[in-house]
């Protein structure tokens, strides 16, 4: 496995508060990684710096060996970085199908065309239909995004990012605000798509069950720095993680707990 993304001592300061403090963070090609930490630990800020919503004050961000630290969002997307949002960001007055199609038009550089009809571009609609099917949203293709349920909106948000054909996908709390029963199906859908396409994914998540069951590697953040980095088993036993994040220095429950 080779390194896909690497941050070198990135810093982001908001006034007196250092949200991200000299973080070295790596994503390997093809892995599914979880980013954990309490609120305010700097997870979302780190993702914002990498995806281009914010610009780093110091340090460097390398994607496939190229420095993207100061690049505009558009260039980072073209390079292969895409993301979803914690508070879902959709085009509410467009249909689910239009939402995905727009990402495809944009990826193909076709949004510049103003004298051709969007509906006439059959390959784009074919691809958009396929993407919706992958995310089990095909039944809602013509529903306005604003009228979908929370779980469907979460999936559509990821589907839009996926339609950009990224190499690295950031998912900011893909199951927040969703009922407990809906979480597993959503994560199953997302992770199976990501793994079958060989996309690297970094998932910010608070639900530890989700974190431990879907990720290859876990990075724990605390107060703007990386606290621990390892496989789910290593993190489960990590003293620092247990004391700062989970709060009780108990040994982890055995996986087959007797009843």
């Amino acid at each position, binding site marked *: 496995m080779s390194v896909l993304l690497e941050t070198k001592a990135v810093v982001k300061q908001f006034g007196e508060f250092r949200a991200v403090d000299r973080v070295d963070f790596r994503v390997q090609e093809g892995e599914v990684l979880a980013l954990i930490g309490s609120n305010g630990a700097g997870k979302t800020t780190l993702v914002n710096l990498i995806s281009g919503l914010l610009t780093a004050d110091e340090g460097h961000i390398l994607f496939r060996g190229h420095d993207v630290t100061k690049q505009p969002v558009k260039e980072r997307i073209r390079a292969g970085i895409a993301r979803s949002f914690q508070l879902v960001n959709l085009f509410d*007055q*467009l249909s689910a199908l239009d939402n995905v199609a*727009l990402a495809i038009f944009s990826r193909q550089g076709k949004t510049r065309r103003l004298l051709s009809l969007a*509906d006439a*571009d059959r390959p784009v609609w074919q691809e958009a239909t396929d993407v919706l099917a992958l995310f089990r949203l095909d039944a809602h293709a013509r529903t306005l995004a604003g009228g979908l349920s929370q779980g469907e909106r979460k999936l559509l948000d990821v589907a839009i990012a996926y339609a950009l054909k990224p190499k690295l996908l950031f998912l900011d709390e893909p199951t927040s605000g969703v009922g407990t029963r809906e979480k597993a199906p959503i994560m199953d859908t997302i992770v199976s798509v990501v793994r079958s396409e060989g996309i690297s994914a970094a998932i910010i998540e608070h639900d530890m069950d989700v974190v431990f069951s879907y990720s290859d590697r876990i990075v724990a953040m605390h107060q703007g720095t990386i606290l621990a980095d390892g496989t789910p088993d290593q993190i489960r036993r990590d003293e620092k993680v247990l004391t700062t994040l989970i709060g009780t220095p108990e040994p982890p429950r055995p996986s087959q707990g007797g009843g």
Partner: protein
Amino acid sequence: MSTVTTVVIPARSPIRRLWYAAPVLAVLLVLPWVAEQYQTILLAYGLVMAIAAIGFNLLLGYTGLLSFGHSAYFGVGAYAVALMVKYLGVVSMELHLLGAIAASVLVTAIFGIACVRYTRIFFSILTMALSQVLWSLAFKFFWVTGGTDGLRVPTPTLLGVVTGKGDKTAFLVHQYYYYVLGVFLVCVAIMWVIVNSPFGRALQAIRDNETRAQFVGIPIWRYRWVAFMLSGVFTGVAGALWVPLNGLTTPDILHWTFSGKIVFMAVLGGFRTFVGPIVGAVVYNYLESYAVGYTVYWQLFLGVILVVLVLSLPTGIVGTAERLMARRRGPR
């Protein structure tokens, strides 16, 4: 991808809508032969304002930007024509239109750079302030613009052959009416393609969610700027077409209250639909003309009518009509 699915093509059927347009077009074509001259001229004014309104609505309805300064581009179109006549002696209507387009591209390109970085009330105020700058220029530089007296413009030559010499009313009611109708249809067709193009979809995406649009790779400022220019050019074309009807350009058309009229037309007709602003412009134009003829307190009278209409038809005339039709079709 291994999944096999049938392609879903969005359920928009533009062709069927053209059937609704056919009878309207028939009425527009025969009107000068059956209606009074005054009615035809009134409709010509309505069609001109409709071009301005669809231009305006590219920003409000499709890009989510409320411009309170479209009088500027209407006025730029109109004054471009008047100044071409005054200083260059140009009488060809086609050259007038080209001049108006060039002038409005120039002005919107500059104003746009300043405006498209802002949204909501900040955008509205900025567009309004810039339009007021042009108004005060037209007002103060009277040796160029004629000040409040305005500039007289004789009837132009259409397509190099048709001249308005002789009976001016007959010219306006027939030749010029059809000329306006022709330009109107071309403008509607072009705008319809623009809003249904991938670019038009991108604008709607920007309207719905700026951050997300940015994160599918759309350069939002640049696209807003292009939309701003297109919007202003349509309105500038309307300004140029308006000049021969009125025979005179005055600073009134640059004043922000004129922008307010354009906003009102779009809202009255329904800015969430494509045809809404067209219907709104024609209806507003009739309302205003009759209100002026009916009472000296026409502004008050018109204001009351407009408040009632907006309160009772919050989605505009076309939005309400569509809802009623959908409800009638619903139970089946």
